């Protein structure tokens, strides 16, 4: 797997998670208290750093074939779930992921919650909201970087791609101080679903003992083939719902 492909795959997948975390932190900071929200971010990043320090070397020490089997299975499951949701959204069978609506909901919830000071944190609600959002989305970023990096034999590059994605999205979010609704998140999720499915399929099959024709180069065929297949399913579902609407 080329370094460029690894960087792009990890960057896009982590950017999607970072958009979701940034929306939560912005809501907590704007509606409640910035100091508490940013303390929550710092605490979550500290927990994530401990997890990376503990899990990084452990993942690196695992035998490659078994690692590829487990990681391939997980990526394939994640990829298919993402792709399924993205196809349902693109064909109009599921509401589009709307960061504006999520932001408004988080703001309304945050405004209603009572204010409680705990230790040096002025607003415990803003702290907890930020902490949970960054930790949960951050866990997904760590998982993506470690699994892609270890399978491609380049954890530092995968880590760099993840950090770049988080930095770019966070800087964008805090520069505009509003939800990142202009990021084409639904399109990004479609692309990431295709990539996770392709890499999951590739590594899962190799881990299970299969050999791809052309080895790593088969990924160059897998990614567009899955994209065409997914777009075909979108067209088919759109036509189905249009026919149903006409009949009604």
């Amino acid at each position, binding site marked *: 797997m080329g370094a460029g492909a690894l960087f792009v795959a990890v960057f896009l997948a982590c950017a999607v998670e970072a958009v979701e975390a940034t929306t939560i932190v912005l809501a907590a900071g704007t509606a409640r208290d910035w100091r508490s929200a940013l303390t929550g971010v710092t605490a979550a990043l500290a927990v994530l750093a401990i997890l990376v320090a503990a899990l990084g070397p452990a993942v690196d020490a695992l035998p490659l074939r078994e690692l590829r*089997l487990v990681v*391939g*299975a*997980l990526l*394939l*499951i*994640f990829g*298919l*779930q993402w*792709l*399924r*949701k993205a*196809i*349902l959204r693109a064909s109009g*069978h599921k509401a589009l992921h709307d960061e504006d609506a999520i932001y408004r909901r988080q703001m309304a919830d945050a405004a209603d919650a009572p204010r409680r000071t705990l230790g040096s944190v002025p607003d415990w609600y803003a702290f907890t909201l930020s902490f949970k959002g960054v930790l*949960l989305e951050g866990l*997904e970023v760590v998982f993506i970087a470690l699994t892609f990096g270890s399978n491609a034999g380049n954890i530092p590059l995968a880590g760099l791609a993840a950090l770049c994605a988080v930095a770019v999205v966070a800087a964008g979010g805090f520069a505009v101080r509003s939800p990142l609704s202009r990021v084409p998140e639904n399109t990004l999720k479609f692309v990431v679903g295709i990539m996770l*499915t392709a890499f999951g*399929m590739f590594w*899962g*099959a190799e*881990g*299970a*003992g*299969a*050999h*791809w*024709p052309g080895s790593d180069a*088969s990924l160059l065929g*897998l990614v567009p*083939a*899955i994209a065409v*297949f*997914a777009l075909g*399913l979108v067209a088919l*579902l759109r036509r*189905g*719902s249009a026919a149903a609407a006409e009949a009604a």
Partner: protein
Amino acid sequence: MGTVVGRVRDFFAFLYDFVVGDDWRIAVGVVAGLALTYAVSRTSVPAWWLLPALLAVLLPASLWLATRRR
């Protein structure tokens, strides 16, 4: 005690949602597909095509079930 049980339950609910997601059939299908790939790879028959074939069946089936429920 009740809080501990609740937290453990919350953790497993998070884990299920994180790993399995909206359609458990996809997770079961992937595990079955990998087991089949492993079994076929032990023989002289090529096994690489099994997962793409699985995708061609599993994804449309899951979408069909999802749209039928609506």
